[in-house]
């Protein structure tokens, strides 16, 4: 149980591999059932519009799960993910493609840890939106 990424191979400014995902309505429904969050804004088009949303939106935690998958996929072990602290800043609609990634921002050579700036973004009408931004992750490197 240790990160497959060595501290010695990482430097400030490095970007981790970006992972993209097409967000499907069936998956968001499955997420509602798996997480227990049955808020109708994640399932009911009319309800979502009634409360001022463009349509059904994904759970913030659904989007965060894609971010943590991206991080642990890079690290090679979830035990290397020590912390994650995110802000939800934009909605994710159905059939949009989200991309998650991050940049190494700080390194601690004694602890062999790194702090990353992390984000989830998408393109909507030619504009880049950030469903997750101003967010960080702490990782324990090998």
């Amino acid at each position, binding site marked *: 149980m240790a990160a497959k990424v060595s501290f010695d191979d990482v430097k400030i400014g490095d970007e981790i591999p970006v992972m993209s995902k097409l967000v499907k309505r069936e998956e968001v429904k499955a997420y509602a059932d798996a997480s227990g969050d049955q808020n109708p804004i994640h399932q009911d088009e009319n309800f979502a519009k009634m409360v001022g949303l463009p349509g059904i939106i994904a759970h913030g935690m659904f989007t965060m*799960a894609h971010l943590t998958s991206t991080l642990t996929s890079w690290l090679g072990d979830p035990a290397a993910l020590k912390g994650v602290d995110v*802000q939800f800043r934009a909605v994710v609609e159905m059939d949009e493609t989200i991309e998650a990634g991050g940049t190494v921002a700080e390194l601690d050579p004694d602890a062999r840890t790194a702090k990353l700036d992390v984000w989830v973004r998408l393109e909507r009408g030619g504009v880049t939106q950030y469903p997750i931004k101003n967010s960080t992750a702490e990782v324990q490197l090998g």
Partner: protein
Amino acid sequence: MALNTALIGKTYGEIDYVVDRDAVNRFVDAIGEQDPIYRDPEAAKAAGYAEQVAPPTFITVIQIQTSGQVVLDQELGLDYSRVVHGEQAYHYERPLVVGDHLRATPRLADIVAKKSNEFLTITSEVHDAATGELLLTTRSTLISRGTGGA
């Protein structure tokens, strides 16, 4: 209507939860996670874990019960239809695995008004029920839209 700030610091009922294989399987399918350590106990054991691993955000399944108690507290005066999830933080001591028996106590840590909104911060420490060992801490910030009064 503004929220009841007299409740800041209140702790809510302790949650008892055993990480369940079916629940992990459903969660892993829903998020599309492909790493076999989250799907196959043998793959998890080969990687050094005691059992099938729960993904980092799996703990959200108990937040329905932890944060839920705060959201539904009649004395708080929160209208859930105004609520959006603003921030979420997790700090991990180790990944959760199937069979972990968890105990968590939610706390309404803060209520802050910013412009027309109010920000509620709910924290919890999740411990191993058998050993008392701290497994992770969670911090959620919910935004109550339009109740800040400014």
